[in-house]
């Protein structure tokens, strides 16, 4: 595997691949059975995340992706108007490809959805099950002095999860640093990563 391909694959796994990188990986998937196996394994994990089970993962994602890319018009024959629209079109393709191939956190979130931040949370006066703070739109707020909680926005679960990840980082980083400080070459430096040291 070439260094560049490795980078592209890594970018796709990290959700950061651009169109060029996606094409590079698809091309390599075509030619390299071992890579294809790795990719299938990865996709299996992705599918498992969506609670769909692994079975329908036998689908070869790469051909679907290639179709998406192939349907893109060629710049050589594009009119000026088309060329002007091109950046958007190409972005859309890249985005749809990313959603197909890579992960699509939002997709995951909409599946099997039972709203955890729903009405019950606020009306029971209880703590949100995952300790989500109210800065996230997914949490309902009370409308003035009324008794009915009003869901503000059905904010994307992706944002909610990102907020959770941020909170967890603050919550857990010091405990992690206690271990990193004894098990990496950096001495006490791992504590410098902790946003706020607690006694």
């Amino acid at each position: 595997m070439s260094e560049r391909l490795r980078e592209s694959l890594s970018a796709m796994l990290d959700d950061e691949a651009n169109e060029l990188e996606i094409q590079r990986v698809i091309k390599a998937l075509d030619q390299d059975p071992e890579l294809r196996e790795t990719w299938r394994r990865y996709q299996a994990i992705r599918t498992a995340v969506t609670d769909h089970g692994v079975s329908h993962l036998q689908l070869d994602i790469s051909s679907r992706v290639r179709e998406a890319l192939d349907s893109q018009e060629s710049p050589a024959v594009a009119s000026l108007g088309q060329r002007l629209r091109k950046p958007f079109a190409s972005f859309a393709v890249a985005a749809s490809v990313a959603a197909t191939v890579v992960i699509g956190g939002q997709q995951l979130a909409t599946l099997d959805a039972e709203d955890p931040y729903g009405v019950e949370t606020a009306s029971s006066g209880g703590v949100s099950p995952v300790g989500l703070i109210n800065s996230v739109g997914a949490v309902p707020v009370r409308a003035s002095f009324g008794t009915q909680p009003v869901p503000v926005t059905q904010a994307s679960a992706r944002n909610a999860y990102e907020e959770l990840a941020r909170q967890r980082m603050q919550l857990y980083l010091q405990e992690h640093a206690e271990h990193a400080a004894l098990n990496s070459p950096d001495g006490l430096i791992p504590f410098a990563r902790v946003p706020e040291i607690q006694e």
Partner: protein
Amino acid sequence: MAGLRSKSWKNFVFALPAAFLLPALVFAGDCPEVDLEAIKWLDRMTRSVDEVSYHGVVTFQRDGQDMQVMQVSRVVDGDTSFERLTQLTGQGAEILRASHPLQCVHPGHKLLRMGQDLQDGECGLSRLYRFRVTEGERVAGRKAVRLEVAPRDLYRYGYILELDRRTGLLLKSVTVGRGSRMLEKFQFADIAYNSRLPEGAEINLVHEAEHPAPGEAREERSLPQAWQVGWLPRGFTATDTPLPNAARRTFTDGLAVFSIFIEELDRSIRPGEGVVRSGSTTSYTRGMNVGDEPVLVTVVGEIPVNTARMVADSVAWTH
């Protein structure tokens, strides 16, 4: 970010042979080619901390954030060591580790002491990283030797380590992610080898570092049932021995460290995932059902997102 990009690292990455991922397969049962000089320097690096006392000023940079400056001291006294980190910027916290026995070598450092491993026919870290020793730059006025550490798989980051040519002490460390991107850098700006502690910084808070170690029982948040991690990247080992139902597990490969935290939820959660990164640190949180129970799994550590995701995915209850 652009300011943190380094030309030399880029050259290093692109100079790597194309068969980057393959050696471990090709040389199965045998060690991939090993740079013995690099192994020697790594070994020396982990032992240097037992041999020298020092004080220095360290800068710490992460992409998109202000530089942090701190005083770092380490004093070897008989068969114990004393360590101190004092933040000169930001929160003004001080971290202390006193009376740490020199013979107390934690799993991460054992992994770095590979000399014996290689003699015993084990490949140690050379299975996981490709090492190269080159002429170092000048760090804190000291001549350094540079150790380029490139990962052999996609599950960990790369590093550029600069060690004091005289003492082996780690003077500078850069963590490098995909695309030759510098994620984080710390380096000494000034260092003195003696055992007189500098004073004078105004401290807001003192934290005594804990000492989690294998075989030592600690009080920790626990879950009603035991759990396990089904998949770890190659070469990672536990940093301590928590109870089977402890809410945390931590693993290291000698250079990278990550921790897994589990929270049991009292009601179901919409499945999903979220990621936040800061420097080389990834925080990946995933809501999912393990068995029939809704849990929140968080992986925090100096590893790529994908590694965190795959580890989180493999969490299961122990039956």
